[in-house]
């Protein structure tokens, strides 16, 4: 577990610079240097007067089990929301009225968020989960002969997750 800074809470009191034994908190980006941070040390987390530093877990538990009925109905709902995203995008692209385009882009954006949430609750919440890994593996074999498919990105994901 390494420390991370919530820059919208940080009030630049810099106590983290005083207590960090490795200098990981002193960076020009505003974020902590994760490569220098000591696993689970948390000195800066406890010292920060504005509660702007927290620990990011490196290991996560398996997500909650989902019943087949829940999974099926959420996939159906996601399909409907994704279909509405497509419809709104199509209507936006076919129109040259800036206000109608703006409205349809908002509808498309909202539907994307709604579909994402369905997948999250259908068992695809954690990138490191078995379900996601299995899906990525299957994508690779499915697109073996597809030159446009970003196979390298998927392979790197499988290595890193």
């Amino acid at each position, binding site marked *: 577990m390494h420390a991370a800074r919530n820059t919208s809470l940080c009030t630049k009191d810099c106590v983290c610079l005083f207590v960090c034994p490795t200098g990981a908190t002193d960076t020009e980006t505003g974020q902590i240097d994760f490569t220098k941070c000591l696993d689970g040390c948390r000195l800066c987390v406890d010292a920060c007067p504005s509660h702007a530093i927290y620990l990011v877990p490196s290991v996560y538990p398996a997500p909650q089990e989902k019943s087949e009925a829940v*999974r099926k109905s959420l996939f159906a709902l996601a399909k409907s929301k*994704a279909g509405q995203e497509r419809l709104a995008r199509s209507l936006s692209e076919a129109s040259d009225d800036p206000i109608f385009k703006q*409205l349809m882009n908002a509808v498309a954006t909202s539907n994307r968020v709604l579909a994402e949430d369905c997948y999250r609750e259908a068992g695809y919440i954690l990138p490191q989960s078995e379900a996601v890994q299995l899906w990525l593996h299957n994508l690779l074999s499915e697109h073996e002969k597809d030159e446009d498919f970003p196979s390298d990105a998927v392979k790197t994901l499988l290595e890193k997750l």
Partner: protein
Amino acid sequence: MEDDMRQMTAEELGALCTNLQKACTKQLRNEEASLFGTLAAYYDKQRTIEKAQDLKTLLAAINTDLSNGFAEASNAAEESNDRGTKRALVWGEKASKLLKALMIRYEKQGSALLENTNIWVCEICGFVYVGDIPPSVCPICKVPSFKIHPIQKEAV
């Protein structure tokens, strides 16, 4: 792979990717987030355009969700005592009702709806809002307003 994963459209796969991209960002895994972004961009390119559609089709789809989709999923969630799914359905149903109201307002008011104001979408729950400034917390998911973003008018 499960059957429902094989039959997914480009938009569905795109949404699955952007969901995982957001999850990686929350874990501060920027490289993985950007790789899911690459995959999402691939599916964006695969999208097909539906010609000769109108607002009525969109409204009909929202109405089907409101009359069937949410109820079916709620029953399934109730049966397996799945509070996380219930949470998503409560938020999603509220956002869908607002989308429906927005379509109906547009049908009545036309461009006047957005002429001198803006439209906003909450990145967490999909809440849509028409007005100059969004509420300080999202009325659906209670996230602070910095996660509620304006959708700009495009130059045509």
